[in-house]
């Protein structure tokens, strides 16, 4: 039973990381109908920023809590500015072009960022400093739930609640929902759609940066390629839940994380991806628009 619970929690925290990234995919898709393939790279850049800042601050000898907070802020700001810039450079000029053009532009941007980090940094794995200590109060259950898992779950939950409040109650949130539902009409009520799109990229990138920081300190090493793999998984999770749906992205991520964790634990870690993608295929056969996705019907 302990083993089951252990797998459950590690699956949950894995799913939480996927969710932080998947939200960026699903929000951007909801607003402009584009799969932002460069989104995984934003997460990777978040991890690299965290690495640089955390290493410098550790050398400077700051207290751990200060390091974590400052690293988090730096990662969020840096990744968000990347997200903002990517949209302006790679997608905005193609706003009225066929969808395929923007998609190709996204893939190009993804390759560019990977190779840019490869050249600017290194192709080797970099050791990431341990930011999250083993809490003393977690001692009795440390063999089933790690302190890092706990931090990941709490951070993700707080981020999700923050996002939900933002979308439901704030002015920019309402503007985002309106733009996602009917862009022309959003313009006609006076919403600056360009600003809404920028905000979406900034918010999605910030979430991915938090994911990057968490995963880097969890796994303990990073390289330029982690964004691609995580991006594909998070994208799968978003599709699984129903692309465009925010609760769907979270649900899809948790389902994917748990599946992978149990597959690894009970079968073999070699089959982790096989199970993950079989699940995707199965769900899409029975629910083509994903778990919580809306079927594309429109009242005329």
């Amino acid at each position: 039973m302990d083993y089951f619970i252990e797998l459950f929690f590690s699956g949950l925290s894995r799913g939480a990381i996927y969710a932080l990234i998947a939200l960026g995919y699903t929000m951007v898709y909801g607003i402009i109908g584009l799969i932002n393939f460069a989104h995984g790279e934003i997460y990777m850049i978040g991890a690299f920023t965290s690495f640089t800042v955390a290493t410098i601050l550790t050398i400077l000898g700051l207290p751990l809590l200060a390091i974590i907070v400052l690293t988090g802020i730096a990662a969020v700001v840096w990744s968000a500015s990347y997200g903002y810039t990517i949209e302006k450079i790679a997608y905005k000029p193609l706003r009225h072009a066929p969808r395929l053009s923007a998609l190709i532009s996204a893939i190009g941007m993804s390759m560019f960022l990977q190779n840019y980090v490869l050249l600017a940094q290194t192709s080797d794995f970099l050791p990431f400093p341990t930011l999250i200590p083993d809490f003393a109060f977690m001692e009795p259950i440390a063999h089933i739930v790690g302190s890092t898992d706990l931090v990941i779950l709490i951070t993700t939950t707080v981020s999700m609640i923050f996002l939900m409040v933002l979308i439901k109650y704030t002015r920019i949130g309402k503007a985002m929902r309106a733009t996602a539902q009917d862009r022309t009409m959003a313009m006609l009520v006076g919403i600056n759609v360009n600003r809404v799109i920028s905000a979406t990229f900034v918010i999605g990138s910030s979430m991915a940066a938090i994911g990057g920081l968490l995963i880097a300190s969890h796994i303990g090493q990073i390289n330029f390629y982690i964004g691609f793999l995580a991006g594909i998984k998070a994208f799968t999770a978003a599709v699984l839940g129903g692309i465009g749906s925010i609760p769907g992205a979270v649900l899809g991520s948790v389902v994917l994380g748990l599946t992978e964790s149990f597959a690894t634990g009970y079968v073999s870690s070699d089959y982790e991806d096989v199970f993950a993608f079989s699940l995707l295929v199965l769900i899409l056969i029975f629910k083509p628009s994903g778990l919580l996705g809306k079927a594309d019907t429109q009242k005329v």
Partner: protein
Amino acid sequence: MLKLENVQSGYGNILAVRGISLEISEGEIITLIGANGAGKSTTLMTISGVVRCRAGKISLNDEEIQDLDTDAIVKRGVCQVPEGRHIFPQLTVRENLDMGAFLRKDTKQIKQDIDYVFSLFPILAERRNQDGGTLSGGEQQMLAMSRALMARPQLLLLDEPSMGLAPLIIKQIFEIIKKINEENNTTIFLVEQNANQALQIAHRGYVIENGKISLTGSAQSLLQNTAVQKAYLGI
């Protein structure tokens, strides 16, 4: 108030509006009538800045607005109820109305205005917590007009408010249009295929054919014009 001079616009290689000139004074109801594909909706979308004006001038109170973004045009008091209503389907009736007041910050008056539109369309008050997408066509039209009113427009652009509605509801909608014009002195630019109804409430009218104005005059004179009767009134 609003003046179009030789305006051209369109989509891709197609020029839908080929040099239109027209003028609306404050407090007027004018109507633009024409067949499908004549360029009526494109004209409105060009005024709102959704479709770019390729040539010519659009001025609002003597200020050129043809190069402004849509939100800047809305900020200057030009609101549109587009063809097909465009209700936000997953926002409630109340949230749809709030979106209409997106650029306003006077919370108190917004509340008053919500009460005002609920008095115009009592059915919306009943449905205030229902998703916009679940309303019937007529109710959606009422909501779309109410949403536009929430912006306190100087100039209201209405694109085929009668489309797909039952005769009784059409009558009701047109009565409200007249009421809005009389009570708030809102200038109204009405685009219609239902030429008869439109000319009944309008002060003046323009007829558009193939992206060009072919005829203009007072609503009365257009109603009596034999060419208009033949082509648009079915007499």
